[in-house]
């Protein structure tokens, strides 16, 4: 089996501060991989090591079988990278920025650039310094995709994008994935990973705490149920973290939806919501 990304015992310390600690991770070629973790967990440190921007304290990381630190130039030829905060030279126009980025690659075909600018409704004449956060993100997306890389590394890719653009962005990613491209996507939004990735890893405090197929995570992950009124929770399996308030209750539920709906029907419920739990709750779900 061929791997696009291989990380072995990777440790990165910034002086006394912890970056990541003894990480092991492999991403297969053609796989859509989700990398989930709260802010400061070590997601960006892992990505910056993969790109050869920082040197590992210990261990190693390889992309396409090449050492990230020693052969970053060769690796970059096949990577499209979208940073969480896309920052470019403010005095350049969007077109100049994209052309400048493309000029470094062997594939200098501009047709893909034009097509992507149209799909993301980018005004290429505007100066990058005048753009909003969301529009800069779109420039970053086009810059990452325009040279048709075989591996996409996306760090918090949807920040700043409106829902329509987010949908278009995932449409483009789905097309790339169908072409056999590998996608490594970091996010703290669980649903983004759940809906698109095949495999996911959770990182917390610099350590990988879970790596599983997304279907399995989704099957096991709980939902936060909040209701006004009351139901008999003892009749339900898969209930955790029950918190009762003056006029209602809240709990984590990982059982079958049908049983929950029946329990809600039997109880005295005025109103209820079922939401995706935040990451801390997912972690708790897995570690309690």
């Amino acid at each position, binding site marked *: 089996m061929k791997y696009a990304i291989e990380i072995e015992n990777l440790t990165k310390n910034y002086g006394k501060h912890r970056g990541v600690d003894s990480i092991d991770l492999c991403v297969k070629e053609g796989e859509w991989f989700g990398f989930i973790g709260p802010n400061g967990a070590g997601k960006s440190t892992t990505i*910056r090591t993969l790109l*050869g921007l920082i*040197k590992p304290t210990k261990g190693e990381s390889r992309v396409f079988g090449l050492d990230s630190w020693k052969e*970053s130039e*060769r690796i*970059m030829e096949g990577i499209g990278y979208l*940073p969480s905060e896309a920052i*470019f030279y403010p005095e350049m126009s969007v077109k100049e920025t994209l052309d400048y980025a493309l*000029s470094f*690659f062997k594939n200098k075909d501009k047709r893909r650039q034009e097509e992507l600018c149209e799909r993301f409704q980018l005004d290429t004449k505007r100066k990058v310094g005048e753009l909003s956060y969301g529009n800069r993100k779109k420039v970053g997306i086009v810059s990452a995709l325009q040279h048709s890389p075989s591996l996409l590394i996306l760090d918090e890719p949807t920040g700043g994008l409106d829902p329509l653009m987010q949908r278009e962005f995932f449409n483009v990613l789905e097309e790339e994935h169908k072409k056999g491209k590998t996608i490594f996507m970091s996010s703290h939004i669980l649903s983004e990973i759940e809906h698109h990735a095949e495999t996911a890893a959770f990182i917390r405090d610099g350590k990988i705490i879970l790596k599983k197929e997304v279907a399995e995570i989704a099957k096991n992950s709980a939902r936060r149920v909040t209701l006004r009124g009351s139901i008999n929770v003892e009749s339900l399996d898969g209930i955790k973290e029950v918190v009762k308030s003056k006029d209602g209750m809240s709990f984590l539920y990982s059982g079958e939806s049908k049983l929950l709906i029946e329990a809600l029907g039997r109880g005295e419920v005025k109103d209820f919501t079922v939401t995706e739990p935040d990451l801390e709750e997912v972690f708790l779900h897995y570690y309690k």
Partner: protein
Amino acid sequence: MNVYKRELKSGIKSFLIWTISIAAFIAICIGMFPEMKGKMDSVSDIFASMGAFSSAFGMDRLGLGTLLGFYSVECGTIMALGAALFASMVGSVMVGKEEKGRTAEFLFSLPIKREKVMGEKYLALITEMVVFHIIAFVISLLSILAIKEEIPMKELLLLHSSYLILTLCLATICFSLSTIPSCSSVGMGMGLVLFFYFFNLLANITEKIDWLKFLTPFSFTDGATIVLEKKLDWTLISVWVVISLLCLIYGFWNYKKRDLKS
């Protein structure tokens, strides 16, 4: 040469401002010479007898009443100090601005080696400095022609060569130091140049401690020595070229091995 071209393009505004300003100062300065020539004979005697002050600027050995004396003291100060400040200003931010402006993540996620980025940036810096000096030299010659004086070509070439070498040395040192994130600032570069400049004035005053002149690159641009001896001090120049090259090697090595800030 993508980075090289981009650096030249992004630096064009400040290059034009500095080049036009320094060239205009030199032209004005030379333009004032015919007016001051007659008066300067008596003033030169006063300057020559002012002890430490005139020693600091080389006026104890060169008469301000001659074109070369006037040029090396007045225009020489403008050229050496102006060019050195320009070199430090450009050199001290050329590398560090990528991290300070947070564009390093964009640039280094493209397929280019760090050494190549450094090399092209350094080449852009050297190009700016050389073109700056060529323009300043041509303006000097035209200004001298305009005031109908004979051009002392050999001495002018020697003087301007020393200013060019000084500029290249200081640009290299500032460029190399700017690979250390905490040293990458215009203030740091300009501070270093002013320190060297004032140190040179002190070294000129205290002739008994001869080795002091090895501690500042301004010492090999001393107009009085160049004009009177009609040659450059290659010992001093060699010392500073070696120091600059060592700094450059350190700069490349440091930038290649260290983590880049996001």
